[in-house]
């Protein structure tokens, strides 16, 4: 009797296990009760600020028609894309996903995304900023639709400007001016810095940003040619090293380590007077820095007329390869990237959206400092460069960055570092 029971229990366990393996796909109903096609939409926007915004857009879409029902699935940053990859390989991906703007070509090349060309005509393309649309094209086809982007601006503390005898309405326009202003803005107590005027590697900006800014917006790989070891890029690295030398390694590290936590942003706390960051940095200023009187300006140009080049990133919407309902998915993508949804996203987040008309319409709805920062960021898109990763050099960043690190750590000279980086990357060409 006992043995019989044991066998029955064991059999049930076995059935349970097998059911566990195959259950999910069927449990995921493809249609709602009232016959709408369910489109699964994956994003990493789960924060208190972003989630209600994207969900409002989804609700609006769901209410706007009776054929498609979009279901929002939140996956944490870092997980979303590996999970997507696994689900594409398993043949059961989401229908729509938010993905990185600079690596669309990689995914197209590796057949991880659907070709959207059949749904897209020229009039649709023209709705978007051209530098963003370029990133979604690969071999003459479109594999995604741009959703949002960013650009870097110089935030400066007007109160500190006044204290230092600088005109708060006249932010630095060139690197030389930036240096001159920074020195005036430094506040020292003996050897210790109480306020640092500026340091190029703090904020949402890195050495590579300055290198491309110096090089008139030229990236590291242009049209398949390596443009890493250029005189202007060497100059930029040397320039960063000069800053480091002037402030001293200890000051730099001491300040830097404190920002790690982001609890107390040093610009907001008044410890740094000029700060490069993306437009949405404004939300932090608004929420935690009510008393900070600040201005925004484009990143200073290397020299007069060389351009205020900024690096840009962002996200696209795409349909993973093998998605079950591409047509319905595309219908939703069109809604998501159209004026109304994009305007809403923009007004709520001060984020730079990809749809030109929406970006401009958002401007009319904002006022005061909201408008000031947002307007500056939209204007700056003209001088923002995207750096899509070329298919032939899929992980060139991982080769380049250590060389830049070594140069900045003083282990090697900028000339040598960039020369070696270029050689290394040349070698890995696919």
């Amino acid at each position, binding site marked *: 009797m006992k043995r019989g029971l044991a066998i029955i229990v064991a059999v049930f366990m076995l059935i349970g296990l097998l059911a566990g*393996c195959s259950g999910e796909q069927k449990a995921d109903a493809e249609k709602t009760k009232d016959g709408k096609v369910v489109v699964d939409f994956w994003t990493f926007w789960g924060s208190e600020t972003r989630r209600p915004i994207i969900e409002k857009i989804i609700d609006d879409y769901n209410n706007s028609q009776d054929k498609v029902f979009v279901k929002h699935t939140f996956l944490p940053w870092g997980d979303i894309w*590996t999970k997507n*990859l696994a689900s594409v390989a398993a043949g059961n991906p989401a229908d729509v996903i938010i993905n990185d703007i600079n690596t669309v070509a990689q995914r197209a090349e590796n057949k991880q995304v659907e070709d959207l060309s059949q749904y897209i005509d020229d009039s649709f393309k023209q709705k978007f900023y051209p530098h963003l649309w370029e990133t979604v094209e690969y071999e003459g086809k479109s594999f995604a639709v741009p959703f949002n982007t960013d650009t870097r601006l110089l935030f400066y503390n007007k109160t500190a400007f006044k204290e230092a005898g600088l005109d708060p309405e006249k932010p630095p326009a060139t690197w030389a001016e930036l240096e001159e202003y920074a020195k005036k803005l430094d506040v020292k107590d003996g050897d210790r810095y109480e306020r640092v005027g500026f340091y190029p590697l703090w904020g949402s900006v890195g050495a590579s940003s300055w290198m491309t800014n110096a090089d008139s917006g030229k990236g590291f790989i242009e049209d398949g040619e390596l443009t890493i070891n250029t005189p202007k890029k060497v100059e930029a690295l040397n320039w960063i090293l000069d800053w480091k030398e002037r402030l001293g390694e200890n000051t730099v590290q001491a300040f830097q380590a404190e920002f790690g936590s982001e609890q107390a942003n040093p610009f907001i706390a008044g410890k740094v007077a000029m700060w490069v960051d993306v437009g949405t940095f404004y939300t932090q200023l608004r929420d935690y820095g009510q008393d900070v009187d600040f201005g925004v300006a484009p990143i200073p140009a290397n020299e007069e007329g060389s351009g205020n080049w900024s690096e840009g990133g962002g996200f696209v919407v795409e349909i993973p390869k093998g998605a079950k309902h591409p047509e319905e998915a595309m219908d939703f993508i069109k809604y998501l990237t159209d004026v109304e949804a994009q305007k809403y996203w923009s007004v709520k987040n001060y984020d730079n959206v990809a749809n030109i008309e929406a970006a401009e319409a958002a401007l009319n709805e904002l006022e005061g400092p909201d408008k000031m920062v947002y307007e500056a960021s939209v204007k700056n898109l003209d001088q923002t460069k995207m750096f899509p990763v070329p298919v032939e050099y899929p992980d060139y960043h991982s080769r380049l960055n250590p060389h830049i690190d070594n140069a900045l750590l003083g282990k090697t000279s900028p000339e040598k570092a960039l020369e070696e980086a270029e050689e290394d990357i040349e070698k890995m060409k696919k």
Partner: protein
Amino acid sequence: MKSSDSTLVHTETGSKVIRERQTAEAARTKGLSRKAKDNLAGYLFISPWIIGFLGLTLGPLLFSLAASFTDYNITSKMNFIGLENYKRMFTMDDLFRTSLFNTLYYVIFSVPLTTAGAILLAVLLNQKIKGMKFFRTIYYLPAVLSGVAVYFLWMQLLSPSTGLVNTMLGWFGIDGPAWLFDPEWTKPALLLMKMWSVGGGMLLYLAIMQGVSPQMYEAADIEGASPWQKFYHITLPMISPIIFFDVITSTIGAFQIFQEAYVMTENGSGGPGNSLLFYNLHMWNNAFEVFNMGYASAMAWLLFIIVMILTAVNMKLGKRWVHYEGGDGK
């Protein structure tokens, strides 16, 4: 008559024998089937594990072995390219060398340090002093806390100017290094962090130390042995099976270091200057950042081979110093 009688008797005995034999056989078949039933139940009970093992472990294992000879990129390609991946590791991939060096560095320092640390701690916590339970609990506590939160905590502790570690060094007039910001100090920083969580190993040592018979120590006391002699000649041999176990598992664990570097370096890059680019991190980047799953599989198999060889060496060497109580070690 007699003869027929005897025949009858004979036949009777014969049939009795046959009958007995039959019952015995019946009993035996019944017994066999009972055993078979038991076996069946047993197999059914472990079948979830067997199916899990075949489907979720052995299957992927063999698949990755096959993939290591291809240019598999997860979604579109899987062409046989022979030993190309393995060749690339040794001839073209500088980062492979860097990552292997970083990993070996970590293994070589972390295994002896954590083992010695855990033993030392266990010895200290094995004293009969009031309130020892409290100390045992707090020293074990770090082993309970989960990974990522701990790494964030350590990033604060190791912060160059405001972190507790450098502040404490400052009390002794030592100007602490920049830890996670200085490529020369990143690996020592991870070792320091690792030392903090030796509580898991400590618990094992403590358990076996408590099992060492007190008579041995009493005997040693009578002989006038010093504390160190008692430790070296009694405690150490008695706990050697656990040391052996600990060394093997922590070597394997140290080779697999990944999370620390992934969480604690910017964007999981393994920086600054690739000083924390560990083998598994490089493998992960290859697999999921640039979709070179074939190459990553080859790396995984090479690591498997390295760990296998090292474990075999450990096993071989282990015979020389591991003491098994009440047995010959076989």
